[in-house]
Structure formats: C-alpha cells, structure tokens
C-alpha cells in the first residue's frame, strides 16, 4: 500500500493508504479529524474544504497520495492552542451564520481563503460569488455573508474587534 507523509494542523503524519483514498477519507478515517465533512459526491457542496499550503481545497477532489509533503489545515487547527477562536469562527457565532453546523467547517475554511485573496476587502456581491462552491441548506446564506464581511474587517485590520451583530 502506498505511503504518504503530510503535515496536518502542525503535526506530521505518515500514513498507509489505498491508492484510491481521497484526502477527506484520510483526514476523517485515518486521522479521525471528523470536523471536515462529506456532503455530496460531485464536489458541489464544499463541506470538505480544507487549506492546503494556505489555499482552500475541496478535500474530496484530491487523492491522499497527491498530498505528499503538503501542509494542511483543517477546521480543528484554526483556533489558537489556548482555544481562542479565529475571527471567522467568532464572526460566524456572533452573526448566527450556522444552524445545523454541517456545512460550517467547509464554509469557514472557504471564507478565510476568500478574505485572504481579497486584501482590500470584499463587497457583498463578491462574497456571495465567492461562496459559489459551498452549499448551506439552513441559513439562506444571509448571515454567512454578514459574518464574512465582519470577519474580513478584523482580519484586515479595519477593526480591532468584531462588531456586534444587531440585537
């Protein structure tokens, strides 16, 4: 069986996998990082989005063996070691941008990459278009869009802390 060595959330792993194993299967089944979800079988839903070398990637579209030497961050690796949430996680809570929570890890990972790729901020329409690859069935996206805009302000230094959502 092929072997793959990769770094996930700062920890190096060497794992034996079947050649057909997808990255998301490696994460969920071998490393038991079950925060990354599988919501479809056609790479449409984005529940499995992780960061690979800082870029968002659908972990269902890449074979584990293609990840040799890669540095991967999953939802479990976002918060600081002391438990402090990433501003995007915090914004999702503040703006009620999640309900059942199933799409949330992929949505948060996509959103962070989206913000990072727009250093000067995003319009509402840019956020909506940037979420093309992520499906949510619960929220109607409205609060997700607001959360991303608020988190972007913090991540890019336009605000020092998250604005409170309206009561």
């Amino acid at each position, binding site marked *: 069986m092929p072997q793959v060595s990769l770094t996930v959330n700062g920890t190096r792993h060497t794992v034996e996998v079947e050649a057909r194993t997808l990255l998301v299967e490696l994460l969920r089944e071998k490393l038991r990082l079950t925060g990354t979800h599988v919501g479809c079988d056609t790479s449409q839903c984005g529940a499995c989005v992780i960061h690979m070398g800082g870029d968002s990637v659908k972990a269902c579209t890449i074979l584990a063996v293609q990840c040799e030497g890669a540095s991967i961050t999953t939802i479990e690796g976002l918060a600081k070691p002391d438990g402090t949430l990433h501003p995007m996680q915090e914004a*999702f809570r503040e703006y009620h941008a999640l309900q059942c929570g199933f799409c949330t890890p992929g949505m948060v990972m996509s959103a962070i990459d989206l913000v990072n790729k727009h250093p000067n901020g995003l319009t509402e329409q840019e956020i909506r278009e940037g979420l093309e690859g992520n499906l949510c*069935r619960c929220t109607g996206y409205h609060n997700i869009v607001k959360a991303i805009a608020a988190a972007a302000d913090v991540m890019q230094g336009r605000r020092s802390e998250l604005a409170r959502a309206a009561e």
Partner: protein
Amino acid sequence: MNVVAPFEGIGASVRRKEDLRFLSGRGQYTDDINRPGQTHAWILRSPHAHAAIQGLDTAAAKAMPGVLAVFVGADMAADNVGGIPCGWQIHNKDGSPMAEPPHPALAIGKVRHVGDPVAVVIAETKQQARDAAEAIVVDYAPLPAAATMEQALKPGAPQIHDGAPGNLCYDWHIGDRAVLDAAFAKAHKVVSFETTNNRLVPNAMEPRAAIGEYDAQSGDYTLYTTSQNPHVIRLLMGAFVLHIPEAKLRVVAPDVGGGFGSKIYHYAEEAIVTWASAKVKRPIKWTAERTESFMSDAHGRDHVTKAELALDAQGKILGLKVHTHANMGAYLSTFAPCVPTYLYATLLSGVYVMPVIYAEVKAVFTNTVPVDAYRGAGRPEATYLLERLMDVAAKEMGLDRVEFRRRNFIPVDAFPYQTPVALQYDSGNYFATLDAALETADWKGFEARRAAAAAKGKLRGIGISTYLEACGIAPSAVVGSLGARAGLYEVGTIRVHPTGSVTVLTGAHSHGQGHETTFAQLVADRLGVPIANVDVVHGDTAKVPFGMGTYGSRSLAVGGSAMVKAMDKIVAKGKRIAAHLMEASVEDVEFDRGTFRVAGTDKTKSLTDISLAAYVPHNYPIEEIEPGLEETAFYDPKNFTYPGGCHIAEVEIDAETGKVSMVNFTAVDDVGRVINPMIVEGQVQGGVAQGIGQALLESAIYDDQGQLISGSMMDYTMPRADDLAPVSVATHTTLCTHNPLGVKGCGEVGAIGSPPAVINAVVDALRDYGVRHIEMPATPAKIWNIIHGGRRAAAE
C-alpha cells in the same frame, strides 16, 4: 452559584450554546462516530423503476475480500422481520381504509423505484463492501413503469402493488359538497386555476447515516441514526419491524446536520444495520452517498391540483373547490398519507373568510421515491394554491390584489375563528402583518422602481402572499381520530441538581434549530438559572424518558410547554420545601426567577438553598415531601398553533436571458411570543431560501421510464449564495391562546409564505406578456420562451 448577569431569558438574542463545537470541528454527527470492531455496509439499489427480481446470486460477492456477509430480502423475511410501517391511516370517501401495501426493508420479488434497496453487503471497509456489491448478480425483468401520477392513473397502467388497484392509495374528501354547489350556483364569477406543486428533494447537508450495534452478552441493540425523532424510530422499528422490546433497544440521534422533514421517517437502512449487527456480531455503519440520498430520502410536495374560487360581485369569496392528486411514490413513508389531507386540505381557508370549502384528494402510487413531509408539509402546497389563486382572481375581477385580500381577511375580532375545514384558529391579525410588510417593502414606491428597472432593460415585478399555517401538531385525541397511530404530546424533564444547576431532558430534537440555547433560555427565564448552568439533553432514548421529536414547528409549542409544566412542578415542590425552611405556610411563599420569598417579608431562599435541602435532607419534612428536585411532564397540546403573516418578493428579470434575480424580500411573520429573536430571524431566512429555491430553481425530475434525471447536486439546482437576496425579517406578535408560552412556531413559515410571493412577483414582472401563470420552478428557459414569444405554452 447561580448569578444571572445579562438578561438571558425570553426575548434575548443569546448567542448559541451549541456553536462552539460546530465551529471548531467537534460536532459529533453519526458518520463521525466509530464503534470498536465496526464494519461497513453498502446497499445495492435497484437501477430500474419497476422490475421483477427473477434471480439473485450473492455467492461471488460473499467470496470477495473483507466481506463478512451479504443479505437479501428473503434473509430478513426468514427472521420474521416486518415491513417498514406507515404511521397514519387515511380513510376513503366510503369509509374504507386506504391501500397500505407491504414495504419490505430489502425488496422481495419486485423493485418499485430506482434506489429501492435489494441487498446489503457487510465488509471490513466501505470500499470492500462497495466492490463486493458490484459482484452481486440480479436478474431483473424490467416492467413498464408509472413515473408520473398521470401515467399511474391511466386505464391499463402498470400495477405497482397487488393491493392497490389502479395505483390508488386513497380517495378522500373534506367539506360539504352540496353546500358548495349551492354557493357556486349563485356566484357572480368562478375563477378556475390549475397548478403543479413541484417535487423537491430536501437535501439536508448531512447525508443520512446509521450505525447498528448488538451486544451479544446483554442482548441489547443500539442504533445511532440521523433522526429528528429517536423515540419514534425506537417505537416503529422495535415494535413493528425488528420486534425488539424498548428496554433492549437504544436509539441515539447525535448531532444531526439538518432534516427539514426528511429525517423524521423510519428508513429501511436503520432496520437493516440494526438487524444485521446481530447476525455478524459486529457494529455496522452505513452512510449514504449523496446520490443515494437523492434516490432514498423521502421527497416533498408533488401535487397536481385543479381549483375553482366562487366570488360575489363585490369580490367576496363564496366558496372554494379543490381537486388534488398527491404523489405518494412507490411506498408509504411514515407520515405521507396525512400530508395532502390533514396538513393540506384543512389549510385551504388560509387567512380568508370562506363560507364553504370542498376538497377531494386522490393519493397515487408511482414508481418513484416515496414522498413525505418536507419543510411545511402540505401547508406550502395549500398556501401556494391559494395565494396564486388570489392573484389570478383579483386580476380577473379587476381588483387590486392587496385590496382583494384585505376584503376577504378574517376580521381581527373574529377569533377564535372556525373554518369550514375543521380547524379553529385561536389568534392572528392579518391586517397588521400585511400593513407592516407593505410599509417595509415600500410597496407604494414600487412603480418608480419598476420604471427605473425598465430604463435599464430589466423587467421588475413585485408579489405578495398573505398566509397562515398550522404548527405544534397536535391534540392526541384529535389526531388519533384522524388516523394517526401515535400520540403527539411532548415530554420534558427538569432536573435541578444539588447545587442548583439544571439538566433539561427533552423529547424534541435539535438539528439546527438551536434548542440547546432556546430551551436553556426558558429555564433562565423561569428559574433564574444562567444558561451556562443549563444543559439541554436530547436525542438519546437512554437518557430522555420519551418524546415524539421535532417536525411541524412543534418543538417549542409542545416541547417547550412540557418544560414549562415540569418547571411548574419544580416551583410547586420548591415552595413546599421553602415553606418548611422559612417556617411559613406554603400559600405565603412566592417565587420569582430563582428566589422563594415569604410574601410581604424579606425572608428569602434561593433555588440553590432549596435544591441543596432537597438532596441533603437534614432539615427536611421527609415524611411529607420526597427528597430530590426533578420533575417530568407530558404536555398534550389543546389545538394546533397558527402562525401567519405576509411575504413580499421583488424580482428583476433579465429579458435577454430570462434569469430572475431576487432583489428584495420582506417577511413579516406572527410566530407568537419570540424567545430568541436572532434564532427566529435565522429560521425565517432559511425557510425563505428554501421557498425561493422551490419557486425559481429546484425540481426533482423523472423521465418517463422512472429514472431520476436530477439525481445529483450537479443536476438538482440548490440555491447558492448569489441566487438569493437579503431577506428583511420582522415579527408581529399575537399570542397563542392555548399554550403556556404563547408561542406558535417559526421553522416553516419561510418555506410556506415565500413561493407564491416569488411567483406572483415573476408573473407581475411579465405582465406585458399576457402571462396568467408560470409553473415552479420559474427557470430562465421558461421565462425566455415567454418573453421571446411563440412558445407561450411553456407557461401554462
């Protein structure tokens, strides 16, 4: 120590307690659970809509690497496993019961829809199970399929079940036909309308999954499953399918990633993995791939309806006649028969005074996935019919559509209001929600916006829907008389611990609704315990005494009421203990948010003083009062609750492409008392998104051979972020008069009120093209054909 800092009780937009685990990847959904020694199941499904199984050879599959077992329908039958039961029996017009054909968990002799389970492979890994399933040889003899209700009802149509002649499940009616005919005879005008309510795939983001586990030593079974109601699954599967006593069967529904109705029902896979786990003596996990979800999760809607509305010369409604065909799919899912009857026809009065209604509903078997309740369940179908009909009728009467509605509204002073179709509305103010929505949406300013859009080459339209629905199902005696095979109360336990923290056990189940927060707020409000010290436990039959689960926006109205009732008992007992400790008479003890006080004095005891005394009963009237501070209550609702309101949609159509863009959406809903405004707003926004999806994007399409054409997320159009516009949500409250919280329910209003508002807006945008109606989903292709002429048939 309980210290209430910021206000966390009823009315506070408290941030959700459950969010932290979901945001950090620590949620525990069924597929995240791995049991020691776990094996994996793969289910072989029929590729045919209708076929006889002439032979089934599993020998090669059994010899494949890693395979522990392969089972087929005959194996389950040999073990006396029952079929998947239906939970509601409807009676025909003549009083005879509906046709209720057998529904084996694994097909026996015949398959009846694409996706019908035929065999299960149990192997060490999912991949091995899947590989082995490909080695099963099934000798199918394909039969002609009835993919649509029209095909199924034709003379000489393929017979799907031996026990359902003509593929008819039932032929049911409600209302007084003779009174209706008399009303129609004196009508000034009768407006006719036909429509199809498009078939939808619920598509909760978490695919269904189940883990069955059998403990050979104790004989105990555990099922982990993606369910909205674990106790109902235990009841149905234990009593009717596998014949396992409740005490030997634990059902756990852990974190569940959305349901929208599709996870109410008892599904074959739950029974298969539970039964098979005792065969292979190992835990078995099954997780649906999304393609399997499309062809095995119950679908929603799928009605074909003809309606006639009789009006007098002033535009007052005289009567409504409705004839509906409702698709049941190939088998009866758990609640399917009640959806087009008691959740649909009984709602046909809407928010209007209708002297008489007569509705007949034929439920039809087809070679498609079973159809059951999906967000709103019957009520969206009724609302869509009525609200399109109101627009069509207003136009044909030459009346303004808002004025026409207002003219027929149930007056504010008419409550309680008895409709001609069984329901009695307790409260509502449809004028108030209408006025608020018109104001918020700037209805008056619309023509200027239309003109501005036209100047840019866009067709802009505005549409309104004034709706009502019934939630909080429902008094057990009433539903029992209507054919329900279960009671529909809810159960709540309040456990006050020795140091005053609280555990709530509820039979309702949260799969996105935020119960862990909202229910904790009820406790904070009543008992004065901060929500950080309140733990809400749900979803496990081993922990929660009993329950009927979450659907039909019933969790707060019924489940919350059970908690209030249990808290009443806690307070009553607490007063007796407090009276003893403060040497007062019980009648003199008052209680308010955590403090017991002797009336008119400064003598007080905190809830913590009382709970400590109850568990450490040194100074305690132990002969008169049992130690401990825990109470359970069963609450049976006295009526449905009736949320209602007004939705206004504003759209813009690109005439070049026919694409509809949502530019504005306003929802003003009366959901009764609001516990957490942030959560209510989120529920409405999510419901509206699904309603817009139905109106513009979504449709489950079968070809005439019964193949599901829109069977993946690449083919079935789920709403994405850029398909939707911001939704302005407001509430206007009239209290429910018959439950202790005054709550009505908010989970479904969005999906019920919005589809007709959107289609009314699309038709309004196309008013220059002579369009009377456009069927959902209003796709660019349909609209382009209307705009670009010659093919107007597409609209009708």
